[in-house]
């Protein structure tokens, strides 16, 4: 047999792959958009762009990597392009290592989940794209091997970054709680 696949068959498999990915990872991809865009309107556009590019990308999907890795890679790529296109200054973004040494600007504790989500999103949006990929993947409960496959960092480096992320999150979501308790007293 061999030869190129007929276009209609390709299109069907492209649509089917997209529908499968959207069903499996749709919610994760929307959360990912929150990590890259604070403005709700622009975030909506970004989420749609991610889905569109994901659909386009499946025309070339060849199972060289898992559907999950493929979908996350495409989503991160679209989001990184969005950040660069929006001309957000890189100098204002920090690496995880730099972030760890910054003073806590979390703005106090809260038992309000919405506020905590906004704080978490704000924390992520201050990070450089590569570190955002790591923290978002960590929050989505991907393991070190999967994060390594998506980002291109070695598993050892991913583990180191995840350790730092845990430390930062503990500082933000625990220490601020103590501060709040002190204020409340």
């Amino acid at each position, binding site marked *: 047999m061999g030869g190129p696949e007929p276009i209609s068959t390709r299109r069907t498999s492209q649509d089917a792959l997209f529908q499968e990915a959207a069903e499996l990872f749709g919610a994760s991809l929307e959360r990912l958009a929150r990590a890259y865009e604070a403005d709700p309107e622009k975030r909506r556009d970004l989420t749609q762009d991610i889905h569109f590019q994901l659909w386009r990308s499946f025309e070339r999907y060849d199972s060289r990597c898992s559907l999950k890795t493929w979908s996350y890679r495409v989503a991160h790529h679209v989001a990184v392009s969005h950040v660069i296109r929006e001309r957000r200054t890189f100098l204002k973004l920090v690496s995880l290592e730099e972030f760890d040494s910054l003073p806590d600007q979390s703005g106090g504790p809260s038992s309000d*989940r919405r506020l905590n989500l906004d704080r978490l999103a704000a924390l992520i949006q201050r990070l450089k794209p590569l570190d955002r990929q790591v923290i978002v993947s960590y929050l989505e409960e991907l393991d070190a091997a999967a994060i390594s496959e998506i*980002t291109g960092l070695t598993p050892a480096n991913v583990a180191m970054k995840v350790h730092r992320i845990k430390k930062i999150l503990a500082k933000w979501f625990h220490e601020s709680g103590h501060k709040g308790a002190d204020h409340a007293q």
Partner: protein
Amino acid sequence: MRNDMPGGDPKEIWKNQSNEVPAMTLKLIQWKARELRMKTRKKLLGSVAGPVVVAFFWAYSTKLKGITPLAQALFAFIFVWSLLGTYILVKGLRSGPMPGDAALSTGLEFCRREIERQQVLARRILLWSFLPSLLGIAGFVLALALIGAKVIPRGVPFLVLVGAWVVAYFVIRSREDHQLQTEMDQLRQIEAENRPGPA
């Protein structure tokens, strides 16, 4: 991650956020494709700014009495330059890898390539759009001076505006260039640190 944090477990907070965007159906995808085509058309329209500026000053200068054939030839040269520039810029815009096409590259590779692309694009805009526009304006001022028009002092406000535009362009560009280069250096260093060693 501990679950005893005041606001709850960050993973849980992250994963339990409510959805804001309706599910993307294939129909919505088709609509998005149309929207993207329209955006691309608008971008292409924006890239003809250089030739439009040059053509405007060329057309204006042809109405001046006593314009020399040399000045006309200069304008023709700049116009062709800016047209060629538009072609190169449009080609660059179209040939850029769409994120979806780069799914086989890792985040690290993609970030680096994307920044490289931005650097190339900034250089192309300088060479093929900004410089011809600037030369078009310079040619116009020169043509005015050659026919004996009193460029100074009557043209001073215009010249000041052009000067401010040029200075602002170079200040912004050099700042952007510096940021992109710093980012690129850091990414290259990370890439070197994460290169798989010999087996």
